[in-house]
C-alpha cells in the first residue's frame, strides 16, 4: 500500500494518538514555502505511542511486524523539542511507515516500545544515551555505545565536547 492508503487505513481504524501526516510538497514561492522533499511520515502523540505501535503491528492490513529503526533527532539547536522517529516495515505487505513523535527537551521521556517490539531494546538504549531521552518501562536502560560515566548527550545540537575524561585531556 502506498502512503495515502496506509494513512487512510490508520484513520479508518482510529489508531490512537494519530495526529497528522506530512507529505513531500513542491516549493511554493507565493506562500513562501520552501517545500519539502523526501518521504512522507505521520506524527503521533508520544503519550499514546505504544498503543499506536501495537495497532500498527496487529492490524491485518497494515501488518508492520518489524521495527526497523528507532532514533531521535534534534531539529533545531535553539528549539524546544526532540523528535523521536520510528521506522516500521511490513514483510508480507511490502510497505513502510515513518512515524514521528515530538517530546519536549526539558522533559524528554516517552514510553518504551520494548513492549511491542523486542528490537526496540537496543535502539532505545542508544537513543537514550545520545539524546538524553528516558524510555519509561525499558528493562535495561544502560549505556550501550558510550562509557557508563559519560556526561552529556552527544547528539543534541547544544552539546559541548568535553576536553577531559577521567584524567585524559585533549588540550
Amino acid at each position, binding site marked *: 500500500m502506498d502512503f495515502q492508503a496506509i494513512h487512510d487505513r490508520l484513520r479508518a481504524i482510529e489508531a490512537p494518538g494519530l495526529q497528522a501526516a506530512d507529505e513531500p510538497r513542491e516549493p511554493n514561492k507565493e506562500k513562501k514555502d520552501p517545500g519539502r522533499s523526501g518521504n512522507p511520515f505521520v506524527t503521533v502523540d508520544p503519550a499514546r505511542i505504544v498503543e499506536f505501535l501495537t495497532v500498527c503491528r496487529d492490524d491485518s492490513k497494515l501488518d508492520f511486524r518489524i521495527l526497523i529503526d528507532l532514533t531521535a533527532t534534534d531539529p533545531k539547536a535553539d528549539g524546544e523539542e526532540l523528535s523521536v522517529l520510528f521506522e516500521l516495515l511490513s514483510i508480507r505487505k511490502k510497505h513502510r511507515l515513518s512515524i514521528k513523535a515530538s517530546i519536549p527537551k526539558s522533559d524528554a521521556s516517552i514510553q518504551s516500545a520494548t513492549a511491542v517490539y523486542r*528490537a526496540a531494546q537496543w535502539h532505545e538504549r542508544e537513543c537514550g544515551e*545520545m539524546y538524553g531521552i528516558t524510555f519509561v518501562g525499558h528493562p*535495561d536502560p*544502560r549505556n*550501550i555505545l558510550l562509557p557508563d560515566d559519560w556526561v552529556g548527550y*552527544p*547528539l543534541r545540537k547544544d552539546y559541548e565536547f568535553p576536553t577531559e575524561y577521567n584524567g585524559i585531556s585533549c588540550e
Partner: protein
Amino acid sequence: MTIEQQKGALTLGSEGRVLPSGEREFMMDVSTSDLEVNMGPQHPATHGVMRILLRTDGELVTGAQPHLGYLHRCAEKIGENVEWLQYLPYTDRYDYLAAMNNNLGYSLAVEALMPGLEIPRRATLIRTICAEINRIASHLIAFGTYGLDIGAFTPFFYAFREREWIQALFEKICGARLTYSYIRIGGVFNDAPPGWLQEVGHFCDVFEQKWQEYYDLLVVNHVFVKRTADIGVIPEEMALDFGLTGPMLRGSGVDFDLRRDMPYMVYKEISDAGALKVPIGRGEMGTLGDCWDRLFVRVQEMKESLAVIRWCLDSIEPGPVLGDVPKVIKVPPGEAYVGIENPRGELGHYVSSDGGKVATRCRVRGPSFTNLAVLEDMMPGTLLADSVAIIGSTDIVVGETDR
C-alpha cells in the same frame, strides 16, 4: 536467570537458581560458582573489537552480555558537521567489508531528497555491479572466517584467493581496495577503465567453479554440519520481533529481500527478467533457522549475485556516469529514510536537510547492530564452542555495530 547489574558492572545472581526445566538446582556442600570470563575486546572470534561478558558453568554458558562501543567513531555526529559529499568516506568505514553498499545507501538517501537529479543509466548499472561484487566479497569473508571460527583453517585461504581478485578489480576502478568512496551522490565517481567489464565477466565464470569447491569443502563437511546444525536456532517469530533482516531473516525461512520485494535502482528490471533469485533457509541439515541455514543462505547468495552481475554486464551501454551535481551540493529541505539490502541486512540511512550544505541529521541504521541483539537471548544454554559458532553466524562487523 537474570544478570543483576549496577551501572554496568556484572554481579552474580543468588545461588540455587531455577533451571530452564523449572526445577530448582540442588546445591551441594562443595561450593562452586560460575566463572565470569571476558570474551574480548581482543579475541580471535568476536569479529572485531567487541566484548562479551560470559558467565559459564564449566563449558555451559549461563549468561552473556555484549558490551559495545569500542569502535564508536561518532559517525552520526560527524554527519551533522561536514558537507554532504565530505561525509562519503565516513560511510565506507562503518561496514568496511561492504563499503560499496554503504556508499550506495547514503547516496540513494541523499538523492531521495533531490528529486530533480537524474542518475544516468550507466551509473546505475555500474553501481549495481559494484554492489553485487562487494556482496560476494563480503560473503566470502563471512564464509572464510566462519570456517576459521569452527576450526577449518583452509577455506579461509581459498575465499581470500578470490577476494584478492575482487579487490584488484576495485583497485582498477577506483583506486582503493577496501574503502572505496566510489559511489557518489549523482552517480559514480569515474567510468570503468577499458577492459574492466570484460574482466568482471571473466571473474564471474571462474568464480562459479570455485564456488562449488567452497560448498564441497566446508558447507557440506560432516564435522562442520555437526558443529553448526541445530545450533542457535532463531524461529521466525523471534526473528521478526528482533527486527532481523538479511541472511539472518532468510535463514529462518522468511522469503524477503529488499532488492526483490521493495526494489530500488534497476532491481525491478532484474527480478522481472528472472535474474534475481533469493535463497532462503529450509532447515536441510537440522532445524530451520540454525547457524547452518544462515551460512547456507550466504553461500547461495554469492552464486545468485553472479546472475545479477551478468544481467548488468549484458545491458550496460556507454554513457555518462555522473549526474548534474554541483561541486558543493546543497540539498533541498526535507527528510528521507532509504533502506537497501546490505550483505548483512537492511542498511538504512535517515537524512534530513534544511536546505544547506550540511545535514541536520544523518542517522545510520546498521544491520549488525540490530542483528547482534539476539545474542543476549541465544547464548545462554549453549556450550562455549557453540557461542563462537553463533557469533560467527550473525556475521557482524563491529564497525557497523558501533558506527
